[in-house]
């Protein structure tokens, strides 16, 4: 398949967007918009210069990595984004509730909201999915009195090998329990990874 001019431009802009990820959104969008406009204007003026013309134009613009390095320099944004605050927030919203039951997670949420590395939407998502972090599934299925799965697991722990679960026809319940357990764990871990990837640099102090 032949690459079209559109593909080449789109690929360039995609690389640029990714290189600019450390910048605050507003600055990143402004730079992207301007460069997109620059390419459009240049191609209009070039007329039909074909792929060679387009590639020369992009070379003149420069490597996306260089543009991003310049942007970080101009806006005083450092590369390598995770500060201590953000790392602590992510660890605590994930397993803080297990380390210090309940409270650890609350501290994590406070740090999450104190950080400038995430948007409000991301903070809401990080708080609500999953409330309590991994402590929620752990509590529901291991500690909560009367939890079906907990009963089965206690069997497993005491008896070494589990043969059946208490209450006769509870094997469906057990499967369901494990499903919910797995789902909650997966959602929380997915959310932690998502937040770690979406982290962006805080704006420079002098703003």
């Amino acid at each position, binding site marked *: 398949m032949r690459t079209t001019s559109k593909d080449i431009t789109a690929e360039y802009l995609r690389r*640029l967007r990714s290189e600019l990820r450390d910048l605050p959104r507003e*600055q990143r969008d*402004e*730079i992207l918009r*301007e*460069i997109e*406009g*620059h390419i*459009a*204007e*240049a191609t*209009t003026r070039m007329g039909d210069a074909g792929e060679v013309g387009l590639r020369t134009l992009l070379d*003149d*613009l*420069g*490597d*996306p990595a*260089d*543009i991003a390095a*310049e*942007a970080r*320099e*101009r*806006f005083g944004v450092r590369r390598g984004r995770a500060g201590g605050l953000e790392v602590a927030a992510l660890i605590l919203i994930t397993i803080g509730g297990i380390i210090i039951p309940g409270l650890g997670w609350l501290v994590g949420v406070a740090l999450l909201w104190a950080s400038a590395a995430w948007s409000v939407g991301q903070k809401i998502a990080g708080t609500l999915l999953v409330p309590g972090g991994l402590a929620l599934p752990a509590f529901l299925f291991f500690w909560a009195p009367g939890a079906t799965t907990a009963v089965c697991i206690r069997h497993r722990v005491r008896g070494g090998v589990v043969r059946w679960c208490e209450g006769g026809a509870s094997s469906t319940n057990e499967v369901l329990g494990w499903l919910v357990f797995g789902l909650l764990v997966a959602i929380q871990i997915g959310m932690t990874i998502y937040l770690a990837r979406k982290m962006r640099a805080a704006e420079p102090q002098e703003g």
Partner: protein
Amino acid sequence: MSCMVPVEKGKEAPLAQMKRGVLEFCVLALLRDEERYGFDLVRELAELDGMVIGEGTIYPLLARLRREGLVDTRWRESSSGPPRRYYRMTASGRRALEGFIREWQRFRDAVDSVTGGEK
């Protein structure tokens, strides 16, 4: 006689840093008398010998100047194609430029007087 300043590891050559600092005043100087379409501004700067590597690196600078209030922008209709964003210098941009020009002349004369300059 030479006085070499050792370049710290991981730090840019001092000249590159200086160019970066001076470039923003070149932008302001080009906007001194008239507002300009971003594209034309960038092309013109890129043609200054040895000032810019990569036209694209000028846009982050324009974004920062705008944020600092040294330039502002407005959209204008274009006879050919979509509206264009024009840059113009603000009053505080003008003050910054005037201050720079005074400093720059002193600096240039001082450097020339020890390095011998041209003529």
